[in-house]
């Protein structure tokens, strides 16, 4: 089946915040909001949970560090111990700097990759421009028509909440 999406375009932060909150409270099905920049408080307005990416960061940072410590120990003290300047085989303090660097590297890169994965961003991906100018100066509130709130109702709601422009999209379920 196809989904019918209605999009209200707003001009200011205040309007979109209000609109988004109102829509949610009224029980409309808010698909998403498109905005040119990160609007503080909108996540609350939309009722989105905080991201779990910090866990990825932590997990891979730690594993990276652990791996590096082991690797340095293994190469220097176990695999081929070489007498370097009379230093002990296992010169743990000397391993700290690189361990730290590698931890940061792992954590940082992994988090970003994870972010791209979860948000489905990849080079050459076509942007689903549900709402025009949302990368410039417009805020787009996307609401799906449901049995309870049919298109006219939503349009009415948009008008009330000072949307400057309203448009519609039909969408195959597949998308």
């Amino acid at each position, binding site marked *: 089946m196809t989904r019918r999406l209605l999009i209200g375009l707003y001009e200011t932060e205040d309007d979109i915040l209000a609109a988004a909150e109102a829509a949610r409270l009224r029980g409309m099905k808010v698909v998403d909001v498109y905005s040119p920049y990160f609007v503080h408080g909108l996540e609350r307005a939309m009722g989105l949970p905080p991201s779990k990416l910090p866990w990825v960061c932590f997990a891979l940072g730690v594993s990276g560090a652990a791996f590096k410590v082991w690797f340095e120990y293994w190469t220097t003290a176990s695999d081929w111990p*070489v*007498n*370097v*300047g*009379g*230093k*002990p*085989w296992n*010169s743990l303090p000397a391993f700290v700097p690189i361990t730290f660097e590698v931890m940061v590297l792992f954590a940082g890169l992994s988090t970003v990759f994870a972010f791209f994965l979860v948000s489905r961003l990849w080079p050459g991906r076509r942007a689903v421009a549900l709402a025009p100018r949302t990368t410039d100066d417009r805020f787009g509130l996307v609401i799906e028509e449901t049995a309870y709130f049919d298109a006219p109702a939503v349009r009415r709601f948009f008008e009330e909440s000072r949307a400057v422009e309203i448009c519609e999209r039909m969408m195959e379920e597949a998308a």
Partner: protein
Amino acid sequence: MRADEPKRYWKSLAEREGGAAYSERAAAEFDETPFAAGPLGSRRSFLQAAGFSFAGALLAGCRRAPVEKAAPWLEQPEEIIAGRSYYYTSTCGACPAGCGLLVKTRDGRPIKLEGNPDHPLSRGGLCAVGQASILGLYDSLRPKQPLLRGRAVSWQEADREVLKALAEARRSGGAVRYLSGTLTSPSRLRMIRQLLSGLPDGRHVTYDTLPAAAVLDAHERTHGVRALPHYRFDRANVVASFDADFLGTWLSPVEFTAGYSQLRKPLEQSPQMSYHVQFEARLSLTGSKADRRIRIAPEELPWYLAQLCARLEVKAQRSSGARLESLPILDDVAERLWQARGRSLVVCGAEHLDAQLLANYANELLGNYGTTLDLRRPSLQRQARPGDFAELLDEIATGRIAVLFLDGVNPVYDLPDGEQLARRLRKLPLVVSLAERLDESAEAAAVVCPDQHYLECWGDAEPVRGLFGVQQPLIPPLRGRAALESLAIWAGAPKSAADIVRETWEREIFPRCKAKEESFERFWERVLHEGWVEAEIEHPGSAFNPAPAQAALHRVTKTAAAGLTLVAYPKIALLDGRHAYNPWLQELPDPITKATWDNYACLAPATARKLGLTDGDVVRLEAGPERAVELPVLVQPGQHDNVVAVALGYGGHLTRRFANLGPRWLGWRPSVNAGGCVGENIAPLLERDGGSLRWTRSGVRLVPTGKRHALAVTQDHHTLTVPPRLAAADRGRRPIIEETTLEAFRKDPRAGAQGHPPPAEDLWPRDHTFPGHRWMMVVDLTACTGCSACVIACQVENNVPAVGKDEVRRKREMHWIRIDRYYSGPLGDVDVAFQPMMCQHCEHAPCETVCPVLATVHSSEGLNQQIYNRCIGTRYCENNCPYKVRRFNWFDYARDDRLANMVLNPDVTVRSRGVMEKCTFCVQRIQEARLEARRRGEPLRDGEVQTACQQSCPAQAIVFGDANDPASKVSQLLKSGRAYRVLEEINVRPSVTYLRLVRNRREAEEEERHG
């Protein structure tokens, strides 16, 4: 001779010729037949290739390596195995001193010269010049063929020319003169006699560029024999030397150094050392080691000797009524000498008859003849007769000569009026030069019949009456023809050098040897095996006649120096310039001035200040009419204020070859000066009276030119005291060199200790024990004379390149071992301390910790290893080395002279551009000794591993060995009270230990010197 290495020798000529098939090919290969050129690496493998000759260049580990051919012998020679080094005895031919050699040959080519430990004179030492002389063998610029008026001709043609002239002379009774330097070779002398005997008017004339004629004359007068006493420094407890640089350049430095230093190694159990006082004008190497050094103007020297004699006369109650003037220092010296009657020695290096007469007198009064001076077996190392030479020069001037032979002499260069002489030589009917290289005189000669290097032909020597050494060929001839053979041909009896030498020995020496062998063959075998033999001698009794000496004593008056006096001196390594072609010697820093690739006008600090001159200011030295030489100034502490000293041996044509030396790049500067030569020839400024050259000339003028000339010195800062402006209170002097006086040492063996050993406890676990060997080195600063033999020995052993003047000027010399020289005390008469500085192989090596790629790490035997092929050249190790002993390959140093590459040691990698290198404690020698010991199934014995520097050291100041072996010499010395380590306080734990410098002084004396 390595203990583990049975000595090899040619059993017989037959056998030597037996290897002929091989020799031929080797010879052929040495002519530049095109074989593997290729990049650096290839040369080593080429040498590696053990009697094979390789073809096909190969790049180390790149794609499919190009095909490499290996051609084995056709006839397997007995006794020679590819890849093994063999040691043959021989006698050094670099100067008339005739030191004993062990020549290390590998696959048919000599690659290293070492002193023969069993040789009675040199006792295992070998000087820098001797060490470097091997490069002369592989000098590709030596002429291959004879030259007839500059045109390369066949030997037959050249001989025809000479024989024609000789026949003519024989017919018309024309004069034939054979001019040579001192020759000690019985065979050579025999052949010369043979050549001249057949002629109506033939004479052999000898002249020396480093003369001792005055000594000979003086003895003729006082002892009735024209002989040069054999000085025995090994017996002299008190040495008073008047301008005799016997440790550096005088007569037989290696022998003298060995003997001298033998008495200067104070130990706790016997805190004794000889006393040495030096009277001299310039600061010589010998003076730098003296316990007491008195600066005197050259003119004053005879008078000082006279005063000494006068004092000795009084003590001996044989006063001839000479006037005594108050000279406390001489009183002291006289007293010391007198106390050591019969065990003392007065030597005089001045070419001044009166001075020499007085020296003889002093020795006579002290009863030193027979003990420290040996006239029974006199030295033959100098034989010049200035009278004859003067005559010869007149004859040349008047053209009354039919044929003139020049053998190993270069008068055109040596003499003040060289050009004039050259012109006259060209006018003579025939001048035949036997020079190895085309020097100035050879250029003036009509025929040049190049002689061979002493390593490629047979020869012998008699440095001291009755002591014979043999020279054997160790490689098929590369160039020229043995002079012996030339002489034989010209004498009309062609014979091989081998036969000639054997003949000499069979007829003249064998009978006198009272040898245990009955047959000559067996005797000859032993001689070749040992390299030398001592023969009985009949010696003329010689009674001392005091008259001439006393006459001199009364004749000599105190003469004040008028204005500046020019003093020409032979420089260590360069001597009279006969080896000026040798880049190693040119690049060897002068032990005192630390300058390379130049000669210069040394001025005393006071004088320099007076004239407003500093290092590098170019001045014009003017002496006599239109005689001037422009030289850079070098301010030399410890020199007499009225003296300007200039080194001989520079500015010769032999140095033209260095025009393109050194890595070529935008900033490259030539190693030669505007004249196309290295340095300036000082001869034009000297004067010749009769047949002898005066090395001093009073009343020279010195005119600043305003020009500058950057000297290539390897050391910029000359004291251990930091500039006062930068010295924090009372921390001026750095305890790098620790020294003390004998008196203090007697009281307390640890006297003079300054550094504090690092804490025994360690923050870290002791992960590194050295269970097997623990290689360590001990260097005795008291024994070290700074002669720099070790520097060249190391250079030959370890394939260290010569980089040229410009690179040295940029402080990029490559020597692995350097000799730091520090002055102390008043600028006037400074104290000098030498410190051989090489990689210290620290147990906590700072260089290792910082190398990111593990290119320098520690071995299980305490060696600090440098792995060239792993090095990427961060130079971090160099920066972090407190001793700055690491050397970086800033460029690919040219090794495109294929013949010269023959000298490379196949056991040591030739380093390429961009890698760090440094002293390895001669790890290749350690390996060799270890493997041989294993092969024999025996443990490695102490002394079986000798580093190159240790081996060559005439003073035996360097000891290397296994510190884990309590019996080893090294661990004995480590216990010495004199032992200390440089920069101990920073806890790098060096493996090189120095033995404190002890001067034979009273503490009070030291006090007033250093406040």
